[in-house]
């Protein structure tokens, strides 16, 4: 690893100030599981690394007026153990569990996973299916970006060099929304997703009609994506087995998978159809007995 300097931020305000001072040659380190792995064999290191791992005000999981706020520095382990998240979004717990292994989940953070901008990120699909909002801090203040607009391409996000991802907000109207996440990798442990899929849906307990279905896919496009046509197919209908299978087929047509050494594009497309259907079934299972707002 190349030589670099480290400055440690005391709180989020300090972190933003340090980042403003050292951008654009600075890199931010939180859990380090991606950054240090990248820097180990890289010939170009940053001159300065801003360590935000001690920024306590970005480590909270709280319900606010805006919704559920998850601090960017919340680790995957903390997500798995949070009573609030276990209660409201078991899918987020499951997604966190599919990341790396215990050691990397103890270090790696939710914000860190998102800023990598890799299409196979395990946190992405569930949050996108929950229409999460990314809260960004900079010297200019605080701005919010909907998750669907956060990613620009592989390893590219809207974050500017002096901006810090501060929190992830699941909007109020989606609190407790039934959601299901599935990941398919070549093995169970420490595998990258060949395809991942998440679905969230409200179902009217009396009529069984579904509303606001949201489907999100990972590892099958340059970024994590939504599948709007598949969603439109389901909106306002009962979630029959046929309807969910058809939504899977539509989602497969919306995906733009590539072939690589892990799997062919065709195989990934098949997986999208199957995983989307199963994610919908999983969300439906939770939804059919759950009254909205309950």
């Amino acid at each position, binding site marked *: *690893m*190349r*030589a*670099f*300097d*480290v400055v*440690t931020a005391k709180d989020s305000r300090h972190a933003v100030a340090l980042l403003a001072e050292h951008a654009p040659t600075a890199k931010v*380190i939180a*859990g*380090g*599981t991606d950054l*240090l*792995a990248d820097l*180990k064999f890289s010939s170009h*290191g940053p001159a300065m*690394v801003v*360590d935000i*791992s001690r920024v306590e005000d970005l480590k909270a999981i709280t319900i606010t007026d805006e919704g559920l706020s998850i601090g960017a520095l919340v680790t995957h*382990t903390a997500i798995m153990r949070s009573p609030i998240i276990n209660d409201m979004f078991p899918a987020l717990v499951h997604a966190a569990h599919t990341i*790396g*292994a*215990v*050691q*990397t989940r*103890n*270090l790696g953070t939710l914000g860190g996973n998102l800023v990598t901008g890799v299409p196979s990120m395990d946190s992405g699909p569930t949050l996108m299916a929950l229409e999460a909002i990314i809260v960004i801090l900079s010297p200019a203040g605080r701005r919010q970006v909907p998750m669907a607009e956060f990613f620009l391409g592989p390893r590219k996000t809207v974050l500017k060099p002096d901006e810090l991802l501060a929190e992830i907000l699941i909007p109020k109207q989606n609190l407790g929304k039934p959601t299901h996440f599935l990941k398919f990798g070549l093995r*169970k*442990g*420490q595998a990258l997703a060949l395809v991942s899929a998440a679905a969230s849906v409200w179902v009217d307990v009396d009529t069984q009609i579904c509303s606001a279905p949201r489907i999100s896919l990972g590892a099958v496009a340059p970024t994590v994506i939504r599948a709007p046509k598949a969603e439109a197919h389901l909106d306002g209908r009962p979630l029959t087995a046929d309807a969910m299978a058809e939504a899977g087929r539509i989602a497969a047509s919306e995906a733009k998978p590539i072939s690589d050494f892990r799997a062919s594009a065709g195989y990934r497309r098949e997986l999208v159809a199957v995983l989307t259907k199963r994610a919908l079934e999983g969300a439906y299972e939770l939804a059919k007995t759950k009254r909205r707002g309950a």
Partner: protein
Amino acid sequence: MAKVTITVNGEARTVSVPPETTLLKLLREHLNLTGAKLGCDVGDCGACTVIVNGKSVNSCLMLASQVDGFDVLTIEGLATTDQLHPLQTAFEEKGSLQCGFCGPGVIMSAKALLDEEPDPSVERIRDALAGNLCRCTGYSKMIEAVQAVANSVNSHPSVKSA
């Protein structure tokens, strides 16, 4: 240079290291604690696993400065002057380690698990060891060893933690 003070295996140590030094390098090269191994250097193999503030981590993925003021436990801190840690005894008796390179990391992962969950299911043990790769013995004897400790801890609550 970054000045780092840590409590390692119960003893306070202050070291000055280049800022890019990882916790693994700090332990191995500056404190001569070579039990944690460098296998892949990118957090995939788990040979460098140590326990920081009660949690197992890949020491190759932490900067030394990030553990300043923290409590670090390495494989060297498990045995005491008068006894081996029950995990070390069990790994020896069950023949869980062959070449031994992954062993310290595996035992630290198992220790972190048992500290939080004295009686884990096989599924939980497998999950806890998923970040530790072994190419020699396979994992079944390691799981057997962890189970043996879990069972003995359960029947003798007094030897819960070393």
